[in-house]
């Protein structure tokens, strides 16, 4: 039991922090309730997908700067497709396109041996251009039914958006995590040479991780159009936000350690801090300063606690 707690100490700590922050919100704004939770969950949706996508490539020891651009491509693709076909085929096609984009990123990194940060920076511009080619101005069409999916609550206090997110991410990640490819992803991120020597196909593992990143980015892009009801070709502010949440969520930049749950909780923490500061009528420009300070403080605190734990 203690082992289990130790292993998941970071995630548990984040959960406690999240609950405390929810409590503070309720204190500041007594009317904060089911509707508040719903809008929080909805607003967090694209951030959560972007963060899950980023977390996977960071675990494999890489980074993907093109996530926000891929989300834009997938968003406009889905919006355009839905003008001429049903929601389901449009979603399937979009997911395939996301996977392909991620796999292209990964393959470029593996084949050219150019550093991941350079390749994905270049692809950030490429995918941005592709999105604008598909749809030069915001447009497209998102079916009412689709927008409805993420509205309301399934149970009091359990927003539909949260359930959709959990199901979608779990559907991608759980089978991977429990199979050998998941193990390989952690192995490559932890020590590429040792993984290679253990018989892991390092190249394929990386391509797979980037492809998974692409799938989740596609989901993120579609969640975006479900929120706004329109396809938006210009990438949103998801890149740095996802890196922030990944770090706060206990995934080590450099790879090999962490999971998806921590980063997703971190997304909510960062969102709710924003809500609290807004409710407290703090200057929006100060908000980002507070976010940055909290991030450094939490990661530092975590490092200190871990260090103590090792020493003891």
């Amino acid at each position, binding site marked *: 039991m203690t*082992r289990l707690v130790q292993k998941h100490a970071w995630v548990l700590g984040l959960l406690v922090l999240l609950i405390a922050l929810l409590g503070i919100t309720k204190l500041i704004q007594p009317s904060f309730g089911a509707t508040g939770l719903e809008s929080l969950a909805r607003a967090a949706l694209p951030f959560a997908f972007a963060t899950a996508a980023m977390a996977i490539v960071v675990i494999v020891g890489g980074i993907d700067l093109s996530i926000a651009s891929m989300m834009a491509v997938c968003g406009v693709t889905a919006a355009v497709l839905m003008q001429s076909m049903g929601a389901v085929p449009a979603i399937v096609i979009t997911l395939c396109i996301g996977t392909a984009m991620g796999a292209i990123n990964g393959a470029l990194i593996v084949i050219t041996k150019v550093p991941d940060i350079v390749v994905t920076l270049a692809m950030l511009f490429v995918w941005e251009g592709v999105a604008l080619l598909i749809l030069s101005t915001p447009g497209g069409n998102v079916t009412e039914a689709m927008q409805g999916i993420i509205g309301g609550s399934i149970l009091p206090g359990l927003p539909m958006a949260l359930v959709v997110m959990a199901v979608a991410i779990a559907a991608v990640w759980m089978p991977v995590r429990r199979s*050998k490819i998941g*193990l*390989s992803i*952690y*192995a490559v*991120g*932890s*020590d590429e*040479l*040792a*993984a*290679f*020597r*253990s*018989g*892991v*196909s390092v190249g394929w593992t990386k391509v797979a991780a980037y492809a998974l990143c692409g799938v989740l980015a596609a989901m993120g892009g579609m969640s975006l159009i479900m929120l706004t009801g329109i396809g938006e070709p210009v990438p949103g502010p998801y890149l740095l936000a996802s890196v922030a949440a990944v770090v706060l969520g206990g995934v080590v930049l450099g790879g*090999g*350690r962490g999971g998806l749950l921590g980063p997703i909780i971190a997304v909510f923490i960062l969102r709710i801090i924003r809500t609290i500061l807004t409710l407290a009528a703090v200057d929006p420009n100060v908000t980002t300063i507070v976010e940055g300070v909290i991030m450094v403080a939490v990661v530092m605190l975590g490092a200190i606690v871990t260090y103590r734990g090792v020493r003891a």
Partner: protein
Amino acid sequence: MDEVQRESLLDASGIAKSFGAVKALSDASLHVARGEVVALMGANGAGKSTFVKILTGALRPDSGKVLIRGTEARVGSPAQARRSGLVPVYQEPSLIPDLDVADNLRLGDTPVDPCLNWVNDLGVDGLRLDHMIADLPLATLRILDLARALAAEPDVLLLDEMTAALPTDLVENVLRVVRAQADEGRGVIYISHRFTEISELCDSATVLRDGRSVGDLKIEPGVENRVVEMMLGAKIDLGARETGTARTNEGIPRIRARGLAVAPKVTDVSFDLYPGEVLGVVALEGQGQDEVFDVLAGFRKPTGGAFEVDGAPVSFGHPADAIAAGLTFVPGDRAEALLRERSVHENIALPFSARAGSWGPLKTRHERERVGHAIDKLQIDTRAKGEVQRLSGGNQQKVTIGRWLAHGVETLLLFDPTRGIDVRTKRQIYPLVRELADQGAAVLFYTSELEEVPLACDRAVVIFNGRVVDVIDAAEADEETLMRAAYGLTEDKAAS
């Protein structure tokens, strides 16, 4: 070994490989028959590591063939080499630090129970499947690596410096198990710098020099000298030093340690280290020597006892304090000491400009002269002129020690500087250490190889179970004496 024809398990012949202009291998070959343990030997830069990489599939040869059981093994990756029946155990552990034992076994498709049986058989107890690799001691990882290879039931087992980081009792277990494996009909390629192990375990030796196989020898008494001859291409005796009379140390010691303790491993370590002296530290693996060096280098604080530098009591809170007091630590792991991506020149010059307060312009000419002098002195093979990482391991190690020749150093803390390097380079390292001492430096020299003590040191302190149990003069420090002391066998005598 009298059978005329034995089934051949591995035949590598005519292997060549170049990296740009550097020809690492020109004509390397190796043959392993069923039931045979073959030692693969070669000085640093002979191409041994490249050959191993080709055999294990990490590199493809430019020409030549590797046949495993008579069929050409299309080894393009370690996974393929494994499928074809050759399983390597590398010099460094190839386990994933952030995964636990069970996941690591799963990753290589290793059957769990046989592997754990091997771990037990090799003499490591209490290994649990949920232990994280990063938390396990190096010796356990080496054993786990070997157990994993054995559990794969390979035709050919390749062991690269398997025993380098192991304590003596585990070494014996490894030799016993490997011999038994060969007797069951497997083939073993055994790479080691330790002649005692090779003569105990191996049937024959293949010697590499300058990228080609220069001979196959049957292991028999006295073969050591011939192997060394072949490795060097000329006869050089194994080395001896005129130890003469013991030094008389007078005056204030550079370092005086009294009752140092680092809970829980070190309980009572006292010694005096004088300028101009090389003081050996002899200890089996994990007797507390790591902690003692950590304390002296300022990496951690002692939990008890005290030490003085030049007669003044000191307490280091940071490695910078140790450096300011003139104590220079050279780690056994050269990767920790060198900037691998930078040139030899820069690595040697670095401490000139790294001194706190030297923000001024670099004294280029002066620096170049001394650096050039140091490089001549080190006899570094400058075939690969660029980055340090292109040098062979032994040459890298020479840079880590030799750069202090260029700077002048008051106190040098050498931690196992000759781990995993060949005889020739070792023989070049001892005079370096002596020369530093002759310049007036005080050198504390931990080595895991006992025969080095009389070659490099004036005296040696023996640490056993966290305490200094003996101090031995170099003149009396033959391997047997040291071995007995290191096992704590002289303790009773010392106490009475």
